């Protein structure tokens, strides 16, 4: 299969308005991925599927990822001249990562037996602009998985034929796989609540919870 750089060049040649980045992967055995902007996501995916050299006809895996707003610290080695002597100094750079949701598609080719090409799309933020184009019209295999991402992360897929909650019930509020989701106190019944659960229960129910004590009969 071609390298990601070659694929990127060919996509940019075919569709000059697309913005594509190659995301490096620190794991040597892992695959790097293509980050595509929302507007041209669908067109790029269609190109990857229909291109004669790639023929990525099989969308294996659709994953949602939540990236809340955070400051990322990266250490960079820098050469500084101190009193005429060149020294290597480690410097920490802090960058602000804006919060967003990300959807990752792992694409393979069943016909040519190669892959994966990892395609990523990012939403603008985590609150109100969480719309991404659905790739279900291209690969039916994404149908249930995109529904799952919608259900658990709240990414709205535009063009999905049947976007409903799938694993949680319809009346459920919130997106349980997000990093900042707080579980309700009483999501699990405990006959003898202890430690953290007891603390939470006390906060939730002001009535005193008695710890279980075995009754000793005379």
């Amino acid at each position: 299969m071609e390298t990601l750089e070659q694929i990127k060049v060919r996509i940019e040649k075919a569709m000059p308005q697309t913005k594509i980045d190659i995301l490096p992967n620190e794991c040597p055995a892992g695959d790097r991925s293509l980050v595509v902007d929302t507007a041209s996501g669908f067109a790029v995916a269609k190109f990857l599927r229909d291109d004669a050299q790639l023929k990525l006809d099989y969308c294996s895996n659709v994953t949602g990822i939540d990236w809340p707003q955070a400051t990322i610290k990266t250490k960079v080695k820098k050469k500084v001249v101190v009193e005429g002597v060149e020294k290597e100094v480690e410097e920490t750079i802090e960058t602000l990562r804006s919060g967003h949701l990300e959807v990752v598609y792992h694409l393979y080719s069943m016909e040519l037996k190669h892959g994966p090409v990892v395609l990523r799309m990012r939403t603008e933020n985590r609150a109100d602009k969480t719309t991404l184009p659905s790739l279900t019209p291209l690969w039916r295999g994404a149908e249930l998985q995109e529904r799952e991402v919608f259900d658990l992360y709240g990414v709205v897929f535009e063009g999905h034929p049947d976007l409903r909650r799938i694993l949680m019930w319809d009346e459920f509020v919130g997106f349980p796989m997000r990093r900042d989701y707080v579980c309700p106190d009483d999501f699990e019944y405990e006959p003898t609540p202890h430690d953290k659960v007891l603390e939470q229960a006390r906060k939730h129910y002001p009535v005193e919870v008695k710890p279980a004590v075995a009754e000793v009969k005379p």
Partner: protein
Amino acid sequence: MSAATMPPPSFQVKPKLDAQGEPLGELLEISMGPHHPSTHGVFRMDVVLDGEEVVKLKPVFGYLHRNHEKIAEGISYLSTMPYTDRLDYFCSMTNNWAYALTIEKLAGLPVPERAEYIRVIMAELTRLQNHTCLIGFFVQDMGALGTPMMYAFREREKILDLFESVSGARMMCNYMRFGGVRVDVNDTWLAQAHKVTNEYAKFLDEFEEFLTANEILLARSQFVGVIPKDLAISAAITGPMLRASGVNYDLRKVDKYGIYSRFDFKVPLGEHGDIYDRYMVRVLEMRESLKILQQALRDIPAGPVMDPKAKLRGFRPKPGEVYGRIEGPKGELGFYVISDGSPNPYRYRIRPPSFINLTVLEDMCLGHKISDAVVILGSVDIVLGEVDR
């Protein structure tokens, strides 16, 4: 319009009309499941019937949902291993292997030779018992109540005894570790495995004699629930279901993970993509599994079963992400793990084969009778622990 670009079936359905253009009757909506013996667990289908014919079918999931992926984000890498047993509780060994393989890829851990052989032996034994039970269940869905399933369970128990003697548990094996397997197998175990393998072929002959040319099975399964080749590819169907539609895609041959390149085996393919082909592909796959088992049991070398550098405690892989996949008995079982350098994974995702194989359940059932929908669901081979996670 080719099947690959075909939109999913419309939700709006109307009853059939007679010659005068009047509706022949009313549509009947049935909620099948979640507690129904034919749904293989807590799975529900919302079926709309026109007479006995299925005109709309919506699968309903989530009755066994426990947010396995969220649980895994809160605990260490190794603590997730026993949870993977509970995904597809028929095939805990292959689940373990898929997860171990992914983390080994992430952390760059080598696996000793003997452990690789043991993994192959366990995976193929798992495939044998999974397919045997599936056929038992599936024949039961057609009305052969009890007997074939009991024969299947009798054989399965022999394999589960092997699992139990090596891992301590029949089904929740929790056997693989990052960089090897938990305990070594001894010569007595290998001899027993050899015996089970040798006897299995005879059982398969017996099983096939009853089923393969059975008139009822043929009538109920041929040209029922057909998936065309291009739809199967587009809908990301994997495993025996995909190969029954005639697509030659077996990860043991494509990815050659582990040591599968050393074994001589064939990939059985179907022609029509109907239920009968799915049954037949599974039977033939079991025979190929027996071939692999014989070779693995013959060639297994002596040596350690754990990489000495592998750490069980304080395991923190370097940041990065990786997608690992194996050919599970039900299809492509994948794990996608993102590490941020902490002891817990940042993101842990499972690609559940039987969940994704249900994508085209409606397409398969439309136009067939309601009793066929039961058989079609049986041929998909679902386990709800994996579907709902």
